[in-house]
């Protein structure tokens, strides 16, 4: 699979999922158990992505470096209700600064 194929397949899948909401009868998608699981699904995936992007290094090893400090800064900014772009920029700047002084 080339990267182009992956990009196109994932994009078309996203559109078909959106379209399903317009074509599939509500009873099929909106059961109470189903809706509980579908509400929690993004929580589980995003939490796992936080871990992978923060502490997983090459080859899947667990690495504590500048990224975890940057995520700490992001959490503080979230507690202060900062804007999304500010949080992302501050985290990047934190890691860049720590690496510039030779850590992580």
């Amino acid at each position, binding site marked *: *699979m*080339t*990267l182009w194929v*992956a*990009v*196109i397949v*994932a*994009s078309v*899948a*996203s559109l078909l*999922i*959106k*379209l399903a*909401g*317009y074509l599939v009868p*509500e009873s099929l*998608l*909106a059961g109470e*158990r189903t*809706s*509980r*699981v*579908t*509400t*929690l*699904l*993004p*929580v*589980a*995936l*995003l*939490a*796992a*992505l*936080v*871990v*992978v*992007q923060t502490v*997983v290094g090459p080859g*899947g*090893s*667990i690495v504590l470096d*500048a990224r975890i400090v*940057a*995520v700490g*800064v*992001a959490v503080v900014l*979230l507690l202060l209700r900062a804007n*999304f*772009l500010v*949080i*992302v*920029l*501050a*985290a*990047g700047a934190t*890691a*860049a*600064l720590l690496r*510039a002084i030779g850590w992580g």
Partner: protein
Amino acid sequence: MSEAASDAAAASEPALPVDRRREVVRQAWSVGIASGTYGISFGALAVAAGLSLWQAQLLSVLMFTGGSQFAFVSIVGTGGLGAAPAAIATASMLGIRNGLYGLQTSQFLGVSGVRRIVAAQLTIDESTAVGIAQPELRAQRLGFWQTGLAVFVLWNASTLAGALLGNAFGDPRTLGLDAAAAAAFVALLWPRLRRRDATATAVLAMFIALVASPLLPAGVPVILAAAAALVVGLRHPGRHEGPLEGADGTLPGSDPTP
């Protein structure tokens, strides 16, 4: 409400007064500006993860849902092409909520044919929130279309700007772009953690990802962590989110990005 009934309801409703119309359009575009501009971070992170400018742009045009786009480029960025199936699966699972929004928006939009496909593509957190927040049917439709259009235009323009900026940068690690991606996921997760079962799901998913990462190929631990939603969701009966409500372009637990 069927499409025919929805159309009849729209026809019987008086046209929106000019000031009311202006109010809805202003709300739509301020929501569009607020979240559409986050495409800058997506564009920069996508090229840092190894995508070309056009691949990043195609994701913003055709995938057009922020959380899924960030997840896709992050997994491909860490796991390479071998992780592409996992990236596709994760992006798709994160996009399921858009399908659920469609159940609501299809009831007031009254669309069919090509207009239905366009409406489906524009069905995201913001357009749904602004649409269902309006009391009158005509304003619901106007709010949905204007917000969808505003976010689409600005998200794509800012993706292009971010990708150009990212290409001009040097080594993504020196610039801390990997940490910026981690922070983006924290910010996407944060608003969803208000309820206790969500927190339990997040803790369990993080544990699964930590244990599985050294053992399994890149991308697979994230998919495995989806089991946390099943475990918690099927164990705690009787507590679920109330009906969707969006007063100012936000839905309970929705992403800050499209």
